[in-house]
């Protein structure tokens, strides 16, 4: 019995795979069907995770451990729904303010340290090879491209005009490399699907 379910499952999976691959060819109801299935399942899966978090962590802590502080996030969460009422819509901004506060705080706190200083530190440590020196110089040149205002006139006529163009050239080398490097990852994924279609579904292997 079990392997019949699995076999049906494989045929359903293969059908959906072909529906998705029909996208580039023509706008068919097949793709639309797979699309609506995917959105329905996607929302269901995350909604379940959300509801389980609310029940396990918040309500669970109040009921089992009496930590009544969890009432606050629950109220803030419920406040989101006031957006649908014209009169109390302003209340929905409070939970959003909390979320944005955490996001901005976490990003401002850590990004200066992890992205700004860490990158400068690793660039300027042990500059003993030509490549390391070249790397540092290329970073400086590329930064000039992102200068917006101070030295604007310099940008049009002065030194920055050339360095920002050089910066674009460095970025183009980088983007070409990232693009080329990504092709392998995408092919690996497609190989995975072909493995499924050829061997698990059609059983040609």
């Amino acid at each position, binding site marked *: 019995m079990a392997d019949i379910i699995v076999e049906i499952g494989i045929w359903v999976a293969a059908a959906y795979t072909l529906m998705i691959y029909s996208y580039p060819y023509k706008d068919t109801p097949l793709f639309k069907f797979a699309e609506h299935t995917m959105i329905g399942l996607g929302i269901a*899966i995350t909604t379940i995770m959300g509801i389980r978090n609310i029940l*396990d962590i918040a309500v669970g802590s109040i009921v089992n451990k009496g930590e009544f502080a969890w009432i606050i996030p629950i109220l803030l969460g419920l406040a989101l729904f006031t957006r649908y009422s014209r009169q109390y819509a302003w209340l929905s901004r409070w939970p959003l303010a909390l979320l944005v506060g955490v996001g901005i705080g976490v990003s401002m706190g850590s990004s200066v340290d*992890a992205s700004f200083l860490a990158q400068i530190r*690793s660039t300027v440590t042990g500059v003993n090879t030509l490549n390391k020196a070249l790397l540092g110089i290329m970073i400086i040149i590329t930064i000039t491209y992102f200068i917006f205002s101070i030295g604007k006139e310099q940008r049009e006529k002065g030194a920055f005009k050339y360095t920002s163009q050089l910066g674009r050239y460095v970025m183009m080398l980088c983007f070409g490399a*990232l693009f080329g490097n990504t092709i*392998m990852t995408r092919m*690996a994924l497609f*190989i995975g699907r072909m*493995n499924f279609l050829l061997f698990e579904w059609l059983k040609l292997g």
Partner: protein
Amino acid sequence: MIASAKEGFWNKLQAIDQRILYVLIIVVVALPLLRPLSLPITVTSATRTAYEKVDEYSGPGSVIVIAYEFIAGNWPEMGPIAVAMTQHLFRKPDIRIILLAMGRDQGPILAENTLKYIDEMGKEYGEDYVNLGFFAGAEAAMASFASDIPGLVKKDYYGTPIEQLPVMSGLNDLNDIDMFLCLWSGTPGWGEYLRQWQTPYGITVIGGTLGINGPGAQPYVSSGQLKGLVVGLRGGGEYEKLIGKPGEATSGLDAVSTTHLLIIAFIILGNVGYFAGRKRTGGEV
């Protein structure tokens, strides 16, 4: 007439209907899968270093966290890396392994999937390893886990309370973890663990990621924040060779070669069409 027909040909070369390209991609991938060319795989220094570091930091008595921060769609590339590195760790005697996910809700299911492919070498669930499941909230959850493990972790993925799992006994915060294996595909992933675990606690991290994240992660390898890094299908194939267990990555690398050659051929066609077309009209097309 001949000139314009020829010009038409050059223009056609520049704008081949992409559906032809798509069909050719399918053909060029299917052939090597059905009849492997088995081109040789050389192990690069990056993958070998990662292998040696995993060995070095999983001595007897050590506690290891493995984070499965990727999605089912990444399995063809992340799967072989996850299976090879997890198998390597399960071969090490007398260590505790904690599987979890904080960024990707599919993590726990993919951890289960990985365990199906490996030989658990007699390790017991609850005794030697545990799957803690998914903690929503990404960086917020990481920060809570790092500072206060019992505070955040109430149950494992199957609902068993932590008190009944000996593998979790005595773990208070991140300082009790000896090595962290971070398998990530994007964001939330290594970036968040860097900020919440590596930078504040200096924990030893070895990574496994998609080919596209390889270049972006290089600065962290050279600065030592990542002790080792296995990258992409190629890295997976090399790690499979190192642990002597060929798997999906090994068989896929032939198809990688053929598809790359096809795309390069199309790029050449496009450029030939562009230049020849321009030469004919003697100027801007």
